[in-house]
């Protein structure tokens, strides 16, 4: 268990060090997030639709599509020079590799979300002071679900010829359930509704987390084999 944790941390640390050094996915994702938030804001007719009505959708479209850029990059690193073979030759379980990649992806997506959130508050002028902890919780739960399945699918498609096209195609159907839950819960938080109204959606997000993380952990090994 300690060895698996050490390996997972090494893999996550290596991925983040490479991303920090190259910043290829981070710059693309943050730029994309800013553009989407701005476009959706200016596309809205403020006399017909209130900011709070479109804000939850805008937030989650931004988060999910910006995350996809990072998820695509996650295993392209390993394809370059077939570095994944080097990892597989080490006495490391596939589960440890999965959790290492998952942790790096969560940090990456979390960073993009952290950068996007102030811009979202600025653009949409939503009341966030009271709802911020709840929104942080919803974001964490939904992010875990789609990053887990995104990590699995990214590993699966990386050896295909059109990996960067295949990932969104395969991932989008899996994104729908957690993102719908996240949008619904966010809408209630932004409307300052009581937390009891959000509980059902939170339970649903928790269920998606458990199912997606468990299934992805067990299926990951199959994606490593040729």
């Amino acid at each position: 268990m300690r060895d698996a944790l050490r390996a997972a941390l090494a893999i996550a640390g290596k991925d983040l060090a490479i991303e920090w050094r190259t910043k290829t996915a981070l710059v693309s994702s943050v730029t994309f997030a800013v553009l989407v938030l701005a476009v959706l804001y200016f596309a809205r007719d403020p006399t017909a639709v209130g900011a709070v009505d479109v804000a939850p959708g805008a937030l989650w479209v931004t988060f999910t599509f910006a995350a996809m850029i990072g998820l695509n990059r996650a295993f392209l690193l390993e394809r370059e020079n077939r570095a994944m073979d080097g990892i597989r030759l080490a006495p490391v379980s596939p589960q440890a590799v999965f959790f290492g990649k998952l942790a790096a992806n969560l940090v990456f997506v979390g960073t993009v979300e952290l950068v996007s959130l102030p811009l979202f508050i600025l653009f949409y002028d939503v009341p966030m002071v009271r709802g911020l902890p709840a929104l942080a919780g919803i974001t964490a739960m939904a992010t875990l679900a789609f990053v887990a399945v995104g990590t699995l699918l990214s590993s699966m498609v990386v050896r295909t010829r059109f990996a960067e096209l295949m990932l969104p195609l395969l991932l989008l159907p899996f994104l729908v359930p957690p993102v719908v839950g996240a949008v619904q819960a966010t809408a209630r938080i932004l409307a300052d509704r009581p937390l009891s109204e959000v509980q059902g959606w939170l339970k649903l997000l928790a269920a998606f987390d458990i199912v997606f993380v468990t299934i992805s952990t067990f299926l990951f090994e199959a994606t490593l084999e040729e």
Partner: protein
Amino acid sequence: MPPAEPVLAAREVTRRFGHRRVLSGVSLELHPGDALLLVGPNGAGKTTLLRVLAGLLRASAGRIERRGCVGMVAHASMLYDALTARENLRFFARLHGGASRGRVDPLLERMGLSAWADERVGAFSRGMTQRLAIARALLPDPDILLLDEPLTGLDDASAEQVLAVLGELRARGRALVIASHQLAELMGVVTAVGFLSLGELKAVESTAGRDVAAITARYREVTGRA
């Protein structure tokens, strides 16, 4: 005295890619101190056999028996271009654990890369990358070392250095399997030659008392190639 247990054995190994059979009923045994040179024309199945022996590819039929740790040097370096030489070795050493962490700097020294230890691998020449890939493979002090064209891209001095390392490993009882076309250069290291043609290991013969010309003649006879 009973013969020592082989550290690596392939028993009737077959590997298919779809309907194409790339390896067909390959059997071999390696004991400590053995160094087998695999020769054969392009497409004979040398790389596939090495990947199956390493456990990176599953055999479609037959079985592989390994006793000990496996290191591999392949066509691709299995290194990260964005990391420095030292960071690459430290990462893989963390995955292997144990004493391999203390072997990073000695191996950089041994492969003549100390002066470039903090340079990014992406800026390395082909020869330097190859030497670093060999250092990576040697990190866990493997009992079995598999090498695919290990002298590719090396100048004379670097090739001498690598040959000296391989000779030293064999003398220390490590088993080597080397796929290469550079028979003359490797004659001083290997103890046997395996002739692979169209996925079949036609013969495995000792190099004792034979020179390059004799083995080349035998290669032509076995593979039917000029």
